[in-house]
């Protein structure tokens, strides 16, 4: 075990997979940083420090610093994958999917199916997402729900350094396209990371807290908030079964259903807007498959159906928080 931050776990995983497999390559804006400037290559090393030093080790053929051209980044990754490589494409902000949606939605996600299973497209798209930095409506969004509704891609959201390593290793080795969502507020989170080869298969949730009174399902940044809420509720003798789903597609339905069968109560915490969200999807799934076990209607803690606002007070009001989760848990427990 080595103690490190999530951003370090991501960088080390990319580095070790590139050493292990010569077909792995990476593309993105400023992933080298400083190209064509007086400061020179590696003057920045990637604005999230998740690619520092890779260009120096692997060179310009495998670490491709790109113009600000998201369609060309994702489209190139798609073409390179069809041509036998394993590209990792970085979207500096997940919000930029709007610029390159066609290459994800109509291209990468559909190749295998529309070509009758005779192609594979092992692209990893790393999307840096999430609110909490007063980055305003176009640099703060949690777009994973929208992407989860898309057949043909897998959607992954690590919340710990160990999960970041295990899930990213799986993503790079996976033969299907993977959208890998990295929350900017989690990059500095530290934890123990297993040394050596470490792979976490997709579709397996992680139990974060054990409890018998209510099931809290969360993902990404929301997991930490759910843990804080669970700690507070524990002081009042309320036991929360907190589940980090880790991948929204595929979804570990069994882990969620098993927990709800035990607790009879469900709160889903989701950073994306509520309509057609992962939270809504999970509530519907539980209502369909565990209706008899439910003692209260499933509850969702999500932002409102608005863009992400800029000002501190507005963004705090927008985001889910431990007190909002505590309130939701108390209301489902109070339901008769």
């Amino acid at each position, binding site marked *: 075990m080595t103690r490190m931050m999530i951003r370090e776990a991501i960088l080390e995983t990319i580095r070790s997979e590139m050493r292990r497999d010569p077909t792995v390559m990476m593309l993105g804006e400023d992933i080298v940083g400083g190209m064509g400037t007086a400061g020179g290559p590696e003057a920045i090393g990637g604005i999230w420090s998740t690619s520092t030093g890779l260009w120096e080790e692997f060179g310009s053929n495998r670490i491709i610093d790109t113009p600000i051209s998201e369609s060309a980044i994702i*489209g190139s990754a798609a073409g390179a994958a*069809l041509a036998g490589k394993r590209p990792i494409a970085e979207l500096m902000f997940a919000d930029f999917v709007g610029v390159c949606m066609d290459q994800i939605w109509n291209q990468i996600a559909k190749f295998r199916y529309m070509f009758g299973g005779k192609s594979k497209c092992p692209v990893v798209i790393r999307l840096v997402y999430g609110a909490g930095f007063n980055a305003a409506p176009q640099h703060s969004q949690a777009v994973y729900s929208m992407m989860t509704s898309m057949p043909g891609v897998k959607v992954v959201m690590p919340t710990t350094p160990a999960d970041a390593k295990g899930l990213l290793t799986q993503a790079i080795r996976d033969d299907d396209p993977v959208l890998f969502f990295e929350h900017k507020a989690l990059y500095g989170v530290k934890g123990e990371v297993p040394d050596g080869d470490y792979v976490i298969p997709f579709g397996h949730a992680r139990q974060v807290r054990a409890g018998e009174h209510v099931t809290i399902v969360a993902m990404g940044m929301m997991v930490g908030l759910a843990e804080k809420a669970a700690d507070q509720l524990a002081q009042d003798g309320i036991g929360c079964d907190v589940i980090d789903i880790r991948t929204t597609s595929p979804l570990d339905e069994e882990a969620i259903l098993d927990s709800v069968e035990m607790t009879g109560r469900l709160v889903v915490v989701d950073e994306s807007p509520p309509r057609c969200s992962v939270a809504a999807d999970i509530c519907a799934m539980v209502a369909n498959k565990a209706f008899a076990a439910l003692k209260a209607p499933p509850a969702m803690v999500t932002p409102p159906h608005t863009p992400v606002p800029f000002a501190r007070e507005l963004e705090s009001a927008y985001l889910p928080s431990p007190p909002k989760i505590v309130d939701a848990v108390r209301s489902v427990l109070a339901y008769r």
Partner: protein
Amino acid sequence: MQLSRDELLGAYRRMATIRSFEERLHDEIAKGEIAGFTHLYCGQEAAAVGVCDHLGDDDFIVSTHRGHGHCLAKGVEVKGMMAEIYGRATGTCKGKGGSMHIADIDKGMLGANGIVGAGAPQAVGAALAAKMDGNGRIGLSFSGDGACNQGTTFEAMNMAVVTKAPVIFVFENNHYSEHTGPAYATATSTDIAGRAEAFGMKAWRANGCDYFDTYETMREVLDYVRAGNGPAAVELDTERFYGHFEGDPQRYRGPGEIDRLRAERDCLTAFRRRVTEAGLLADADLDTIEAEVARLIDEAVDEARAAPAPTPAMVLEDVYISY
């Protein structure tokens, strides 16, 4: 450079196969035999064949919604394609893609594409993969005068130049983007290649209705790109004999336009005249090829009609490799 007899016969066979394939689809679609949207390549055969005759299976192309010609020129199998367009389980893509989405990775055909302009960056990516391997392979994007107005095409050309990707942008200017003329829709309507030059790459122009002009031009282009000089572009002036899609009433055509194009700009007629007048091939050689091609297309249609439809269970297959 003088082509051998076999090379000439092969080129004619490939062009005649595309022509016959497309003319037959036109007839069968009119009878209601085939579902969906089909965009025929008739008239442009010399472009696809003149380009692809320089490529091996390990070179990569991406194509367009008007992609049958590119597929056939790149070596995708006729019967599989016909079955695919008929929506059969035996089709190239098991009936999942249809006319607009034929791909055959083993042949270096990375996919026809229903989204205009989507292929250009994918060709850059395939070229970057080839550059990583350093084996002289190239990526090539076929697109039309319509796709030259898509932002993806500009992004792809810029990125190709800055990454020195061994990629070729082939613009087949057939003078119609769907139902609209370049004089209206394309700011530099008489010079698409100039757009590529503006991005800093070398560009060529050729008569896309003349196999020999296209072929000889592409030889220079391929030599240039395979030598590691970075990307290049080619504008091929060509003609579309049918509508944007089958069923298009083509009210935008001028009086007698199609008759005139078929009389003056037919690449098969031009090829035949050139090789017979030069005494390289006899009319009988070309007639034999046409008869053989006609038999192959007959067989392909018969087999497609008789082939099994996909089963409902196949809806669920091939979404993921593992899920």
